[in-house]
C-alpha cells in the first residue's frame, strides 16, 4: 500500500476545520445582523456602562400629572 502525503484523515480534518470556521462565521454574521435589526426597530439598547446617565435615573424622571 502506498503512503500518501495527504491521507484521508488530513482531508477529513481539513473539512472539519473549514466547517467549524464557516459555522462560526455564520454565527457572527447572524449576531451582527440581529444587532442591526434590533437597533433599526428602536429596541432599548441602553444599559449601565459605569457613567451617570440622567435618562436611566428614576429620581430624575418627570412625574406624570393626571389630566383634569
Amino acid at each position, binding site marked *: 500500500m502506498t503512503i500518501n502525503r495527504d491521507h484521508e484523515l488530513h482531508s477529513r480534518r481539513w473539512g472539519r476545520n473549514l466547517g*467549524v470556521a464557516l459555522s462560526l462565521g455564520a454565527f457572527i454574521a447572524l449576531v451582527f445582523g440581529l444587532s442591526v435589526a434590533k437597533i433599526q426597530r428602536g429596541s432599548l439598547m441602553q444599559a449601565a456602562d459605569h457613567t451617570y446617565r440622567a435618562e436611566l435615573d428614576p429620581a430624575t424622571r418627570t412625574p406624570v400629572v393626571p389630566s383634569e
Partner: protein
Amino acid sequence: MGDIQADITGQSATGEAGFGDYVQLLKPRVMSLVVFTALVGLLVAPVSLHPIEALAAVIFIALGAGGSGALNMWWDADIDRVMTRTARRPIPAGKVEPGEALAIGVALSGISVIMLGLAANWLAAGLLAFTIFFYAVVYSMWLKRSTPQNIVIGGAAGAFPPMIGWVAATGSVSLESLLMFMLIFMWTPPHFWALALFMKSDYSKAKVPMLTVTHGRRVTRAHILVYTVALVPFALAAAFTSIGGPLYLAVSVVLNLLFLIGAWRIWRRPEAQAEADKYRIEKRFFALSLAYLFGHFAAFLIEATPPAGMLAASIGWSF
C-alpha cells in the same frame, strides 16, 4: 503518531470525526422537521418579526433541537449499537467520541436557549429549554427504557417547535399554538408504532419496551387506530381558528380520511398477512404519516397568504 498509524493501517475509522459526522450527531432529518414546523408557527402568528429576527429564531430553535439530538445520541449509544436502523450513527460507528457528543449537546443547548432569549423573548427561550430537557432527560434517559408509553409522552418534545415559533413572534401561548402542539403530539404515536411494526426485531434486540414488544403487535395495531381517531378532532378544530380556513379544512378532511383508512387497514389485518407482503400497508401508512404532517403545516402556511384570506372572505368564512 496517530497520523502515521492511520497511514499504515489505511483504515478510515480513525476516531477523527469529519464535519459531516458532527452534523449527523444533530439528527438533521429531525432538525428539518423542527425548522419547518417552527417556521410555520412563526409565520402564521398575527405578529410579524423583523426577517433577521425570524431567521435567527428559527436557526436557534433548530440548534436547540440539534443539541438535544446530540444528547440523545450520547445517552443511547449502547442501544444504537444494537439496532440495525441506528448502528451507523456517529458514536456507535466510532466516528465521534461519546464525550465529544455530550460536550456538543450541552454547548449547543445552552447557546441556543440564550440566543433565542436575546433574539426573540424569554418565554420562547424557556419553552426551548424545557423541550431540550424533556427530550434529553424525560424521554431519552427515563421514559424510553421504562415504559411502552415512551412514544406517547415523549412525543411532546417534537410537538413544541411550532409553539416556540408562535411564542417567539407573539410573546404568548394561545389556542392556535396549542392546537399545533396537539396535532404533532397526537400524530407521533401512530407514526412511530407503524415504524415499530415493520422494524420488528430492532426494538426487542435493544430491549426498548416499545408497545410491540411489551403488549404485542395486535394491541399496537389497535393503539394506532385509537390514536388516529383521537388525532382527527384536533386537526379539524384548527380549521376554525385564526390559522385555519376553508383551504386548510379541505386539505385536513382529505388527509384525515386517508389516515383513518390506513389505520383501519392496519388494525384489520392479521400479522401473518403483514409478514407475507413484507408490511406493505404499514410502510405505506408510515409514508402517509409524513405527508399528513407536512400537508397540514403547508396548509397553515397557505392560509396565512393574502389570496387565501381573500378566498375565505369571499365565501364568508369568519373564524
